[in-house]
C-alpha cells in the first residue's frame, strides 16, 4: 500500500507549517437559522415527510474545525482565524439596530465562525411564519447583508424569500414586461431593496 505520509513536515519552518494548516481550514456556509423540513423542499415537498432531519448537519456545521483536535500547533492556528460566537453575547463589531434580526428558528446555541473563510446563509422565508408559526423580529435581509460584510462577503438566501412557493410555480422561459421598471416597488419591499443593494457583488 502506498504510504502518502509526508514525514519531513515537522522539520519545515514554523511559518510554512502554519500556512499549510491554514490551507486545511474549512470554508463554511455559516447558517443564520435552522432549516425546516418541507419548507426548503418547495412545492413538491409540501406536507410530505422530508428525507432528512437537517438539524444534525446544522449542528456539525457550527462545531470547531477538525484542526482544533489534531495538535497544539494546528489548534493555535485555528483559534487565530476563527472563534466561538455566543448567541448570548453582543458581537464585535456590534451590528447597527436595523441589522438585528431574530426568528423562532434562529441558531440557538454557540457556534464556530471564521470571518475570513465563511459565507453566510439565511433559510428563513415568510412561509416559516405563515405555515409553521415561526415569527421573526427585525429585518432578515438587512441582517444578512451585515453578516456578509462581517464575514467573507458572500451571502445566499432562499428563492422563496421573494416568492411564495405555495402560490405559484415560477416559470423561467417567459419574459417579464420591462415596464415593471417604471413601477415603484411596494413599500414593504423597500427594505429588501435597500438590503440587497448592500450585499457585495
Amino acid at each position, binding site marked *: 500500500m502506498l504510504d502518502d505520509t509526508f514525514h519531513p513536515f515537522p522539520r519545515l519552518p514554523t511559518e510554512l507549517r502554519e500556512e499549510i494548516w491554514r490551507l486545511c481550514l474549512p470554508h463554511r456556509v455559516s447558517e443564520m437559522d435552522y432549516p425546516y423540513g418541507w419548507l426548503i423542499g418547495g412545492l413538491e415537498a409540501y406536507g410530505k*415527510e422530508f428525507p432528512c432531519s437537517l438539524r444534525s448537519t446544522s449542528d456539525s456545521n457550527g462545531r470547531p474545525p477538525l484542526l482544533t483536535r489534531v495538535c497544539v500547533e494546528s489548534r493555535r492556528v485555528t483559534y487565530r482565524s476563527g472563534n466561538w460566537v455566543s448567541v448570548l453575547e453582543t458581537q464585535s463589531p456590534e451590528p447597527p439596530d436595523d441589522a438585528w434580526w431574530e426568528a423562532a428558528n434562529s441558531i440557538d446555541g454557540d457556534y464556530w465562525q471564521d470571518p475570513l473563510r465563511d459565507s453566510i446563509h439565511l433559510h428563513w422565508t415568510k412561509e416559516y411564519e405563515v405555515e409553521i408559526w415561526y415569527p421573526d423580529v427585525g429585518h432578515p435581509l438587512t441582517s444578512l447583508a451585515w453578516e456578509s460584510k462581517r464575514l467573507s462577503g458572500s451571502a445566499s438566501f432562499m428563492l422563496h424569500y421573494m416568492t411564495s412557493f405555495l402560490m405559484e410555480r415560477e416559470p423561467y*422561459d417567459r419574459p417579464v414586461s420591462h415596464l415593471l421598471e417604471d413601477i415603484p416597488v411596494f413599500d414593504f419591499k423597500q427594505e*429588501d431593496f435597500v438590503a440587497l443593494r448592500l450585499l457585495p457583488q
Partner: protein
Amino acid sequence: MKVVIVHLDLARATKTGLFGLSGDAPVQVLDAASPLASQLYELAEACEREAVSVTAAQDFTRMSANDMDAMVQRVAFKNLHNRELSMRMRAAIMFRLCTKMCNHSNTLEEGITGSAVSNQ
C-alpha cells in the same frame, strides 16, 4: 435555492474532498453552473441508490444552470422592479452532508411502509 442531501458516513465523505479537506464543511452552497455541483449531485444520487430502501426519496430532477439563473432573475425582477439588481443574483444549490442516514432503512419492507406513510 434547491437543497440536496448527501447521506453518507463521515470517512467516505471526507475522502471525496467535496465537504472540505477534512470533511468538516458539511454545508456547501455552490453556483448552479459549478462542476462541483454536478459531482455532489452524482454523489447524493449514488448514496440514495446504495440504500436497501428509502423512507422518503429525494427528487433529483435537475434544471439547467441557465434556466435556474433565468428563474431567479425573473423572480427578483418581478419583486424589485430593477433589472440591474436582479441580474446580480445567481442560482445556487445547497448540499448538506448528513451522516445520520435519515431516510435509509435497513429492510425493504421498512422502506415501503415509510413511503406509504409519507405519501398520505
